[in-house]
């Protein structure tokens, strides 16, 4: 009988990757499996299910519970089937009287020290111990319960999301192994020996106080109710599930949203998810409470000016009000006086519709997206060199990498599930090079390979990448064959001439980067001589005044060493938000139609014009910072912002606030009254990812389905609101489901030509390009050629290091760099409304002990941080991980005003802000900054406006 692999079934041990097949007999059935497969897995693949407790197919076999014992002809005893690999000709018996008795005896011992409270246990109906007791036919416990036991062991309820009930623990070590093997944190251990053995977090601390990162892998692995989600304890077990895609970072994990009716009980990472393979982080698994938070905007609201209370109105009235204002403004100030911003948190379909609305209904190209302030240099730099504005690999590709270079990224915090995969590869022996001003957690990962930290000064990335490439070329490590076959020779010759100049030698760059030359040379040699070397980078690369140059420098290094077009290599931008890749793909930038087709391309434009039925502008529109400037000059008067919080996330907050205040009409569509909405005239309720259908595209170009699991709180999915606004403006849009929008995207976007909801249902997910040339999508790009030039050859780019003008001096002697933390997400609008606040309820300024001592600063002191742009106040943390002269903070809390001090400096090619380099001075202070005082006043006033709208509406009802 043909056996199909069922990803939801637990096969007990991981799959073997061997190509050599072995045939054996289990219970008289002839079975052929890859060499290295365990007897347990071989049996399970053919639906012969051997009882198990300590085994799980996402963990290496452990063989501690002995429940899975079998008999093998010609072998003594009863070996554990999980730890016994198959042999050719092996004959296995999984069920007979002897095995049944053995299993019952083992189970009897387990149950003799386990509470018999099944009917009131939160795992009732979802408990492997209960299932196995039934499977082995346990009918009595002869030992009684009077002896020594653990039944009174205390509960650890310190973690806000799960409870550790030690009385139910069977010490199977699945949680400990999940923490090590799946997550890579090593926070759990088995403490004590024999009867005293117990699971312990950290140094026998509470879970919350330990180094546990609350990824939940232990909870998922637990076969009993020992580690259990508090939501299940409170609500009971779910009754149905819907598979969807996480709306946090760019990893794009697949989850089963497990439901009771329309109530979400828990999020369980999907084993069949191609991006996450059943793993998750604290945000994706647990931080979904914001969806039902009391702060959700539940009704449309309007007001004439931002110093007035809101008025709750019907959808029809709000849309009509917005459309009239937009039309009136255009009539008075011209076609280009309005614009909009698409959201990297919304779906591809929603993003596509917003830019279509702007181009077709507004009649201009004044569309931009938050990628402007994060990965726009990636779009520019990779397009210039490799021909496509996207990363080249799958996440799984890292498992084939022998040397991993991480630049300006902190995967364990910002892309945690991929960070865990990377850690797994490091444990297998890959070497690690980290170029970052800070000593990131990845460097402290226990692993077999060696690791190198290049602690460069902020703002010196390009000097560093040039030095690395200089060593590759001058020491003869370049891949001449690859360069000759795959790269354009003229561009290579020009770059080669540039890069061999002595000024790029590590010894001459040491003064700039602050990193010892020999360390740079060693790193370059390590990277160049690895069989497969890969580069992963983040916002520490892009958010600089030379961000685009650095992206091109990264591409140069990969090309020069021939690390392109196969597994284990490539250039991999780690995208910040869930759909940054998608929002760029969907034509959110002012100069590009969907699929990165330039607005000046008459052929491309004609195709859009034919389908959209309008004439399109052939000039690029305004970027976000241009919109602010134009607003302040009075030429730009109205803006439609869907799912972005530019007032918090964009640099130089006071400049942004002044621009937003100058608008005649700001339409904000969001799930909360965010910072931007405080300047709005129309507030349209947004829908969370749980309340809509669509697709997200992750950092590996993977298009994955988002499926509605509950109705939108205000009755409409975000795409429906855009459709209504467009229709009210007189530009008809007629879609009944996002699948129809995707069909239009496929029609107009060459790299999406074969994408449809039917294809996604069939294949789970697809990586673009997905078209006639690559009908099943493209996991690895550029395997044969590059989509650039006539010959498909990659272009080296000359990468001159132009230092930022934002420099430390006597008045501002420190360099501030900003970043993210694991428990919070971006501007924090979602995670601040969850129990993730337990880990990070305020933004802190990290400062090196030397700098702190010079200023008499201790951890916990209030610090005034002053830059050329402004001042804010944060609490201090003295941290060894900082280098002297560099301070660091996050921007997750609006009241922190982190962006009050960041400047208008930006990338030369894309205007991506230079968040990573701000010259500052810090000093001890005793009160908030003026901006913070004003912020608090405005915050209270705007929330009062919101409350008064709700109470007025209640009175009318």
């Amino acid at each position, binding site marked *: 009988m043909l056996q199909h692999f069922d990803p939801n079934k637990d096969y007990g041990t991981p799959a073997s990757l061997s190509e050599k097949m072995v045939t054996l007999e289990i219970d008289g059935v002839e079975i052929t499996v890859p060499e290295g497969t365990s007897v347990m897995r071989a049996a399970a693949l053919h639906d012969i299910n051997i009882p198990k407790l300590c085994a799980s197919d996402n963990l290496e076999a452990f063989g501690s519970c002995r429940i899975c014992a079998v008999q093998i002809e010609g072998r003594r005893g009863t070996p554990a089937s999980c730890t016994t690999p198959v042999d050719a000709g092996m004959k296995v018996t999984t069920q007979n009287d002897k095995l049944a008795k053995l299993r019952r005896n083992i189970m009897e011992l387990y149950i003799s020290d386990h509470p018999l409270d099944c009917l009131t246990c939160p795992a009732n109906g979802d408990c492997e111990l209960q299932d196995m007791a039934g499977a082995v036919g346990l009918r009595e416990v002869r030992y009684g319960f009077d002896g020594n036991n653990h039944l009174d062991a205390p509960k650890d309820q310190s973690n806000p999301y799960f409870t550790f009930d030690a009385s139910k623990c069977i010490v199977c070590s699945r949680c400990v192994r999940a923490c090590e093997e799946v997550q890579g944190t090593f926070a759990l251990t088995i403490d004590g020996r024999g009867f005293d053995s117990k699971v312990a977090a950290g140094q026998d601390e509470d879970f919350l106080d330990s180094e546990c990162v609350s990824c939940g892998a232990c909870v998922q692995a637990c076969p009993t109710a020992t580690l259990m989600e508090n939501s299940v304890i409170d609500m009971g077990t779910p009754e149905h599930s819907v598979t969807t895609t996480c709306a946090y970072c760019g990893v794009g994990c697949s989850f089963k949203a497990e439901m009771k009716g329309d109530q979400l009980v828990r999020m369980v990472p999907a084993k069949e998810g191609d991006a996450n393979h059943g793993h998750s982080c604290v945000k994706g698994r647990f931080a979904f409470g914001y969806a039902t938070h009391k702060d959700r905007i539940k009704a449309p609201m309007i007001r004439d000016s931002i110093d007035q209370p809101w008025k709750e109105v019907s959808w029809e009235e709000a849309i009509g009000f917005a459309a009239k204002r937009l039309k009136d403004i255009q009539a008075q100030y011209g076609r*280009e006086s309005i614009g909009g911003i698409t959201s990297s948190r919304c779906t591809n379909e929603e993003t596509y519709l917003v830019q279509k609305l702007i181009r077709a209904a507004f009649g201009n*190209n*004044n569309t931009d997206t938050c990628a402007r302030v994060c990965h726009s240099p990636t779009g520019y730099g990779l397009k210039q060199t490799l021909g496509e504005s996207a990363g080249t690999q799958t996440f799984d590709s890292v498992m084939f990498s022998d040397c991993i270079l991480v630049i300006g990224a902190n995967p364990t915090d910002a892309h945690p599930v991929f960070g865990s995969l990377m850690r797994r590869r490091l444990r297998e022996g890959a070497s690690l090079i980290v170029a970052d001003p800070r000593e990131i957690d990845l460097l402290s990962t226990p692993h077999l390979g060696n690791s190198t930290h290049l602690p460069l000064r902020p703002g010196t990335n390009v000097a560093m990448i040039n030095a690395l490439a200089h060593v590759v070329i001058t020491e003869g490590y370049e891949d001449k064959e690859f360069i000759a076959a795959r790269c354009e020779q003229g561009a290579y010759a020009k770059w080669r001439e*540039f890069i061999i100049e002595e000024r790029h030698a590590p010894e001459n760059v040491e003064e700039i980067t602050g990193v010892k030359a020999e360390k740079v040379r060693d790193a370059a040699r390590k990277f160049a001589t690895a069989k497969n070397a890969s580069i992963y980078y983040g916002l520490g690369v892009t958010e600089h*005044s*030379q961000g*685009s*140059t650095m992206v091109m420098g990264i591409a140069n290094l990969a090309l020069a060493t021939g690390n392109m077009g196969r597994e284990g290599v490539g250039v991999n931008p780690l995208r910040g938000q869930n759909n940054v890749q998608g929002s760029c793909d969907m034509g959110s930038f*002012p*100069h590009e139609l969907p699929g990165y087709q*330039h607005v*000046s391309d008459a052929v491309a434009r004609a195709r859009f014009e034919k389908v959209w039925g309008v004439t399109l502008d052939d*000039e*690029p*529109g*305004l*970027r976000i910072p*241009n919109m602010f*400037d*134009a607003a*302040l*000059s009075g*030429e730009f008067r109205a803006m439609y912002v869907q799912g972005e919080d530019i007032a918090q996330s964009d640099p130089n907050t006071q400049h942004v606030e002044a621009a937003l205040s100058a608008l005649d009409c700001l339409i904000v569509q969001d799930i909360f009254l965010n910072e931007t909405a405080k300047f709005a005239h129309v507030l349209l309720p947004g829908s969370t990812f749980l309340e809509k259908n669509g697709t997200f595209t992750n950092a590996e170009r993977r298009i994955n389905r988002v499926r509605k699991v509950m109705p939108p709180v205000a009755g409409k999915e975000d795409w429906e609101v855009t459709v209504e606004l467009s229709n009210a403006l007189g530009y008809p849009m007629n879609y009944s489901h996002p699948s129809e929008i995707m069909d239009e995207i496929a029609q107009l976007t060459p790299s999406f030509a074969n994408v449809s909801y039917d294809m996604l249902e069939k294949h789970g997910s697809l990586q673009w390009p997905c078209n006639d040339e690559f009908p099943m999508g493209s996991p690895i790009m550029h395997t044969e050629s590059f989509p650039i030039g006539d010959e498909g050859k990659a272009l080296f780019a*000359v990468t*001159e290091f*132009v230092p930022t003008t*934002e420099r430390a001096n006597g008045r501002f002697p420190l360099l501030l760099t900003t970043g993210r933390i694991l428990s919070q997400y971006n501007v924090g609008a979602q995670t601040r409304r969850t129990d993730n606040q337990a880990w990070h309820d305020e933004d802190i300024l990290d400062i090196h002990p030397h700098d702190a001592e010079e200023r008499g600063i201790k951890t916990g002191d209030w610090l005034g941080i002053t830059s*050329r*742009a402004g001042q804010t106040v944060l609490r201090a943390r003295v941290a060894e991980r900082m280098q002297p002269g560099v301070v660091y903070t996050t921007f997750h809390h609006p009241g922190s005003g982190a962006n009050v001090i960041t*400047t*208008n*400096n930006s990338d*030369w*090619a*894309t*205007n991506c802000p230079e968040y990573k380099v701000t010259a500052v001075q810090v000093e001890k202070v005793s009160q908030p900054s003026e901006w913070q005082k004003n912020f608090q006043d405005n915050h209270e006033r705007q929330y009062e406006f919101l409350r008064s709208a709700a109470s007025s509406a209640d009175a009318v009802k």
Partner: protein
Amino acid sequence: MFHTEEESIVTMINHIAQNNVSAGSDSDVADIVENHIIKFWSRRMKKILAEQLASGTEEFEPAAKLAAERLSAKVSA
């Protein structure tokens, strides 16, 4: 940091020129700058650039100024 939109436009075009200085002569650099502006700058930014050029400001770097002049000439043609 720059303070006015006009200053920022001049700073930006200079910045593009500085980052492409390896292209060769001022004329070669100006080619890249000109193409970049055509491809990525909005109509409004180009207008402010032309106004700054016409104002006679001395803040332009040579290659940036050359690019601005070529762009202005195209508009006038």
